[in-house]
């Protein structure tokens, strides 16, 4: 009798950890809370629709048909940038597979040496030198990796994101390495669109008031009032945000670094990532290469029933391991470890040498050869 292998075509995005939502079979990646993103979309589309409905016919006839055409182009560009920012992978770093996590754990333990029991082990930090500046790489307990420089863990999405800028609820996604330039272009073009609509609203009201009077104008185009209101408030925030990000880009800093004050105050002028030239910094951020997503969302996973063996290749060899084991690295409890992990860590520590074996070898105890138990006991002695 041969083992029954139930294979179901599952895409990798379905098994990704983290708190993202995926749409279109893994092509679209967003944060869980999308309410404010829908509001953003509603405000932009709503305001522009009012503009096209009320102002554009009058302006096209009395001023120039180029005005609505340019407005349409600007509107489409804004929507494209917004969708691009919201739907793309911001630069999420995949979590370490158990073997890698174990390897790093062993390195850390070797580096720490013997810590007397009862004493807290030193914090997990790796120092690297970048352009004559010492940068500390922190260890992420959730992803079990040492975060690359400029990466940070987003608690809302529960992912480590490369070149993490901030989590933006207005776009419903994190802003990181891969979508920062789209985010910047979105804020820039939205500012321009807001200014454009605001300006032409004023022009339209003035021109019409000259003919018909102010109150009649407002009666004929009631949308104008709403548009002016929305644009007025949006304008200040968007122009301010664009200005802020232009400043950050010229210094090659992220919002995260700015908030933490990593390269300001007494560390001013020590940013190792800056080229010390505004043009070069802008070029790197805005005109740099388009980084690919390292999260393989649409790859296929082979899901087999637990009784069967999996022998198909490196991809499926790793996946059962990832699925069957959640926390395998014998973590030393630290102030940063989440509380629910601590009891399981205590349980793992007390179960003895069995846990030192790699998870791929997690066969039922009866199946393991006697010699294996002997060697593991001998090793621990």
């Amino acid at each position, binding site marked *: *009798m*041969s*083992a029954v292998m139930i294979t179901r075509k599952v895409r990798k995005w379905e098994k990704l950890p983290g708190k993202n939502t995926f749409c279109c079979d893994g092509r679209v990646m967003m944060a869980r809370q999308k309410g404010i993103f829908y509001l953003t979309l509603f405000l932009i589309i709503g305001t522009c629709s009012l503009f096209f409905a009320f102002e554009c016919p009058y302006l096209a006839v009395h001023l120039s048909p180029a005005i609505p055409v340019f407005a349409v182009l600007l509107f*489409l*560009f804004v929507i*494209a*940038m917004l969708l*691009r920012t919201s739907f793309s992978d911001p630069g999420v*770093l*995949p979590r*370490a*597979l158990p*073997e*890698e996590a174990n*390897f*790093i754990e062993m390195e850390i333990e070797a580096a720490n040496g013997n810590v007397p029991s009862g004493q807290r082990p030193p914090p997990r930090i790796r120092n*690297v*030198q*970048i*352009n004559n500046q010492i*940068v500390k*790489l922190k260890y992420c307990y959730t992803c079990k*990796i040492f975060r*690359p*420089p*400029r990466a940070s863990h987003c608690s809302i999405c529960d992912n480590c994101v490369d070149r993490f800028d901030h989590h933006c609820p207005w776009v419903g996604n994190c802003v990181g390495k891969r979508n920062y330039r*789209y985010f910047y*272009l979105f804020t820039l073009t939205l500012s321009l669109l807001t200014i454009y609509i605001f300006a032409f609203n004023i022009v339209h009201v003035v021109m019409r008031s000259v003919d018909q009077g102010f109150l009649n104008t407002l009666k004929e185009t009631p949308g104008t009032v709403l548009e002016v209101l929305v644009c007025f408030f949006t304008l200040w925030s968007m122009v301010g945000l664009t200005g802020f990000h232009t400043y950050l880009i010229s210094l090659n800093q992220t919002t995260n670094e700015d908030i933490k004050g990593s390269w300001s105050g007494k560390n001013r002028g020590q940013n*190792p*990532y800056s080229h010390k030239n505004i043009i070069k910094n802008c*070029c790197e951020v*805005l*005109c*740099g*290469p*388009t*980084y*690919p997503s*390292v*999260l*393989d969302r649409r790859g296929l996973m082979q899901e087999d029933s637990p*009784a*069967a*063996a999996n*022998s198909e290749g*490196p*991809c499926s060899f790793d996946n059962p391991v990832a699925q069957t084991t959640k926390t395998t690295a014998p973590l030393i409890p630290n102030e940063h470890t989440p509380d629910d992990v601590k009891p399981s860590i205590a349980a793992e520590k007390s179960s003895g040498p069995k846990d030192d*074996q*790699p998870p*791929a*070898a997690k*066969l*039922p105890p*009866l*199946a393991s*050869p*006697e*010699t*294996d138990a002997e*060697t593991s006991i001998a090793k621990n002695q």
Partner: protein
Amino acid sequence: MKNAGLRCFLYSINEQIRALAGSHPKSVLTGFKCVQTHSLQDLQQPAVSSKVFVQRDYSSGTICKFQTKFPSELESRMDKQQFEETMQTLNNLYAEAEKIGGKSYLEGFLACLTAYTIFLCMETHYEKVLKKIARYIKDQNEKIYAPRGLLLTDPIERGLRVVEITIFEDRSVGSGR
């Protein structure tokens, strides 16, 4: 010699089952048949001994670059020179992918004009180089690493964090996991 080892192994399983099941091992045996199949198939695969992870080198900034230091676990398996050459070539390829120059500016500018919709049908320069890297790694595995019982994993499958080198143990040397 392999068959003898297999027989001893199955014998030990049977003994353990009998010891646990007591007087009626048959019912236990049918229940564990799939387990036996699993371990048989497992034995036929080369036993994975360990994995070495070559970390990123951040000394030049955040560009994708891996350390070229020769790991001690590979000392018995291959030449230091060859390993360093592989890593250096990989680093050069990644540098080519991430190069900021005339070509990347042109690509970025044209893409911006089309509101980045052009990337729906066109491959980016980085993706083209990644394919090149995948071919290079496959080539290196076939020519240099597989004959020595090693396997390089493309770093893109590990989030461009590490180069994973799997060291396969010889089947004739124990059954260690």
